């Protein structure tokens, strides 16, 4: 029979039930979404890597004879060795004036299937053995540039323009995240991967019987560090630039980083929703039990045990949570699938394993039901503790005290406002839950919306404060200093600034960072050492200026020394003093004077990259000329880099933000509905009395909604503050060596978050207010509460 009562209670309290269920559903959906996307992406990645033989160690070098492969294969722990020829080249395409860079990758000679890093053909076929005019394009690159099978394109290979035909389109585990060297985001229009026959590349780059790239797979369970330690010395005399393990391979690094961020989302955000849901459950049950004192005592008088009564109310809490769990499962599974598809589209997986393990559903249900029970515990406890006789008596009239508001001020307030303030003061815990719910909704939104602010700031800092050049040209080989003058004579070039970047191991004590040294002229101004605080540091004559993230990793501060082992040329080793540390959000730079760098390298004044300031009116003529210049490996146009970064991040952020808007609205609406509905249930009689006494609907609405509105008003600014904290927490959790998301929230972000929550609150309160129009004025004249 109690179950019949349970069903009727659920129906009678359906507004509350739905409100609680919505909040639970939001938390469960977030949890299921994040966890299922995480599981699916991990599984997809693993399967992809496994099927295509994604290597575990990668190394680049200048040129080594093929027979070195045997010695590499003899390193203990190595399973497979695959040598390749790779090169950066500029690509000339019909109708595209801007420079396009490609990474050329050789496919094994004689048409053999690659042992490692096998591309997955999406269309067409592999290149025919020995053909030097056939190419397979990275599918996203082809799509972005409107290229398809049979199309031709011209590649500037080692100074010679070569016509090739597209015979296949492929994806590769090595380029899940196809990023140009030094880039921050994939830009499929301007950077792509092109696979060609080994013979073709060997001929173009003078690599007959030689290689300049090697990948290894290892025997099961062998850690890569030991193998790298043996591989590096082996490659050193062949111009090895230092091997990296799979975890540091650019594409995989980005991918793993995304997964880590999903993991963070899966922990922080659902927790917020489920904690609020627990408090809501408590508030709803506490109110229900307060109005059902007589029924409870009656049940006990009939002989129902404490356990039976307690279980009855606990079931009510569980039923509310269960509804939320079911809703959350459906929503979360859908969103998880959508999310996974979004990711796999972004990352270009050739297939997708959307297979939630089932664990995410179980975990979310256990957590949600557990938090509902925890929330219900104290209210249920009160029902259980109620002695039958006690319960038969009506509850003692609500005791009130003068508010915390000083009497002087209170006297100046009108009486309805005093009612509002005293109600809040009488139920501090419930008021706190409302404030917390509202502020967490705002906080979630601030966190979601500030990503846009942070990225805009990051981009501005990187691309306008730090990099003032319009484009950067990179060369295959070192250029003598006088080449600067050749560059400055190119059409539209207004200023030229040389730069040199060498790969290097930086060490301080036991700390090692495998990165790069950037050499800048002492009077550098196109590429500035810009601190995010807003100032620029000079290039020091002697020491090195390093980013704070690198300083932290190496545990050094200005005045300390760093030992450097350059991973290029003759691998010079030297020690330099840290001249200054500056704050930057992107990468872990170490900047050194260009003349010093050249000297340490044993080279005459030279550079391998140049920043250009260009007259935009003659840019196309410049592009035309650049195509003709031999030895150019890449041209990066800043405008495009900025646009791409915004485009890529913008899309992802927009989608995520809209999820968050929905969830935050559910949170705010759920909390406000419950608060206002409970207030109405407690005060219906008083409000009806006031109507009888001649108060208008709007005047009593003020009393009912005023309390909730005031709590919302407290919650909004608090939410901005909590949002700031949450954003900081997430920024810290998301910080990587490549970039650290700056903590910045612009006023419009706070404004938007506040407006959205306010709108959700108003909508939800209006729903409750409508009931005031149906108050039974006559009933209050006769009945006791």
């Amino acid at each position, binding site marked *: 029979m109690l179950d019949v009562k349970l069903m009727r209670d659920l129906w009678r309290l359906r507004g509350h039930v739905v409100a609680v269920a919505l909040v639970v559903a939001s938390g469960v959906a977030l949890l299921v979404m994040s966890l299922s996307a995480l599981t699916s992406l991990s599984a997809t990645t693993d399967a992809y890597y496994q099927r295509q033989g994604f290597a575990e160690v990668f190394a680049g070098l200048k040129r080594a004879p093929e027979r070195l492969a045997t010695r590499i294969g003899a390193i203990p722990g190595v399973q497979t060795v695959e040598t390749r020829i790779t090169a950066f080249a500029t690509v000339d395409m019909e109708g595209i004036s801007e420079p396009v860079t490609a990474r050329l990758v050789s496919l094994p000679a004689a048409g053999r299937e690659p042992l490692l890093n096998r591309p997955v053909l999406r269309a067409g076929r592999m290149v025919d053995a020995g053909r030097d005019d056939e190419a397979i394009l990275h599918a996203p690159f082809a799509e972005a540039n409107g290229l398809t099978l049979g199309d031709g394109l011209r590649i500037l290979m080692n100074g010679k323009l070569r016509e090739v035909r597209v015979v296949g389109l492929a994806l590769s585990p090595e380029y899940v995240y196809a990023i140009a060297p030094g880039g921050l985001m994939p830009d499929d229009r301007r950077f792509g991967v092109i696979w060609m026959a080994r013979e073709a590349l060997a001929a173009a780059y003078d690599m007959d019987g030689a290689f300049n790239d090697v990948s290894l797979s290892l025997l099961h369970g062998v850690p890569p560090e030991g193998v790298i330690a043996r591989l590096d010395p082996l490659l050193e005399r062949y111009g090895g630039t230092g091997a990296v393990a799979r975890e540091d391979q650019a594409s995989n690094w980005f991918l793993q980083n995304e997964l880590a961020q999903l993991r963070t989302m899966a922990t922080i955000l659902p927790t917020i929703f489920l904690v609020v849901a627990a408090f809501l459950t408590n508030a709803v049950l506490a109110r229900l039990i307060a109005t059902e004192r007589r029924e409870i005592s009656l049940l006990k008088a009939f002989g129902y045990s404490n356990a039976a009564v307690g279980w009855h109310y606990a079931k009510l809490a569980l039923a509310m949570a269960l509804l939320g769990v079911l809703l959350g499962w459906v929503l979360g599974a859908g969103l998880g699938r959508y999310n996974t598809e979004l990711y796999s589209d972004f990352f270009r997986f050739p297939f997708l394993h959307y297979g939630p393990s089932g664990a995410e559903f179980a975990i979310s249900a256990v957590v949600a039901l557990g938090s509902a029970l925890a929330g219900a515990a104290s209210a249920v406890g009160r029902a259980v503790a109620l002695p039958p006789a006690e319960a038969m008596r009506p509850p003692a*009239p609500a005791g*009130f005290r003068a508010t915390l508001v000083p009497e002087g001020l209170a006297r100046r307030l009108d009486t309805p406002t005093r009612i509002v303030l005293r109600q809040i003061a009488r139920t501090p815990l419930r008021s706190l839950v409302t404030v917390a719910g509202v502020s967490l909704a705002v906080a979630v939104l601030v966190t979601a919306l500030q990503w846009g602010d942070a990225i805009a700031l990051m981009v501005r800092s990187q691309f306008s404060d730090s990099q003032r050049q319009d484009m950067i040209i990179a060369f295959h080989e070192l250029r003598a200093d006088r080449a600067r003058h050749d560059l400055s004579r190119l059409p539209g070039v207004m200023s030229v600034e040389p730069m040199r970047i060498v790969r290097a191991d930086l060490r301080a004590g036991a700390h090692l960072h495998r990165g790069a040294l950037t050499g800048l002229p002492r009077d550098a101004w196109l590429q500035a050492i810009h601190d995010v605080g807003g100032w620029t540091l000079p290039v020091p004559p002697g020491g090195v200026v390093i980013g704070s993230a690198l300083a932290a990793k190496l545990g050094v501060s200005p005045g300390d020394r760093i030992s450097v082992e350059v991973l290029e040329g003759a691998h010079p080793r030297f020690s330099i003093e840290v001249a200054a540390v500056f704050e930057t959000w992107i990468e872990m730079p170490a900047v050194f004077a260009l003349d010093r760098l050249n000297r340490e390298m044993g080279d005459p004044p030279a550079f391998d990259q140049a920043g250009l300031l260009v007259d935009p009116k003659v840019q196309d003529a410049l592009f035309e000329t650049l195509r003709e210049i031999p030895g150019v490996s890449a041209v990066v146009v800043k405008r495009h880099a900025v646009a791409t970064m915004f485009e890529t991040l913008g899309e992802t952020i927009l989608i995520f933000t809209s999820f968050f808007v929905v969830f935050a609205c559910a949170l705010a609406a759920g909390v406000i509905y419950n608060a206002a509905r409970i207030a109405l249930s407690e005060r219906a009689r*008083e409000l009806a*009395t006031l*109507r009888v006494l001649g*108060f208008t*609907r709007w005047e009593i609405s003020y009393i009912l909604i005023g309390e909730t509105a005031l709590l919302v008003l407290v919650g909004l600014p608090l939410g901005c503050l909590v949002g700031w904290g949450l954003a900081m927490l997430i920024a810290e959790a998301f910080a990587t060596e490549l970039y650290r998301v700056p903590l910045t929230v612009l006023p419009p972000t706070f404004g938007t978050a506040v407006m959205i929550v306010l709108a959700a609150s108003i909508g939800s309160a209006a729903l409750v207010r409508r009931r005031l129009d149906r108050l039974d*004025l*006559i009933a209050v*004249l006769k009945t006791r509460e």
Partner: protein
Amino acid sequence: MEPLSRSNSTSSPPAILRAVKLTKVYGHGASAVHALRGVDLSLVRGELVVLLGPSGSGKSTLLNILGGLDQPTGGEVLFDGQPLSDADDDRLTRFRRERVGFVFQFYNLISSLTAVENVALVTEIAANPMSPREALDLVGLAERANHFPAELSGGEQQRVAIARAIAKRPEILLCDEPTGALDSQTGVVVLEVIERINREVGTTSLIITHNVSIAGMADRVVTMADGRIVEDRVIETRVAPSAITW
């Protein structure tokens, strides 16, 4: 029949509130309940009327309609000569706010407000109120002004409710079983207050009760049964409430 207008008729004193052929039917068809079956009633300025009748006789329905809380099915209510029966919600609210004072069986004080604040609640929205203190003084509770309802006895709460009802200087005071929840001794104190207000302030008062003993304190006793007025009797000599017991 009395004239409909509030003319200076010499034949009878002017009626402040008049019900003409009031009917009220709840539900319809076979299950229809006729709560009022053609009630005619006039309340003259300054008089104290007791409306007697057993449960279900229709007296509460009549009070609800007279007080602007409910609309009759048929007939007319005239307040000060103006028809109330076709007034919309806004006009009825204004009517209750400005012209009528209500006293409930269960006091219905706002628990979060002190006695004086409960009175101020009404004086703040009234056009020409007395001060809340003055109203409390009239019911003899000036010294309890700053107590919350939970700190007052039932009788005290009802006196605060009366102070709240009369503070706006209503033209008519409608009391629905004002002693229904009180013991005899406390009830008498409450009746004394109502009688005193009627006498000193001149507020037209209508007390609904099923307690026949109260009838003696009225100028007129109207008795209802089965939705009709069955007796309308003028009391020649009002009895002081203190002389009443039950």
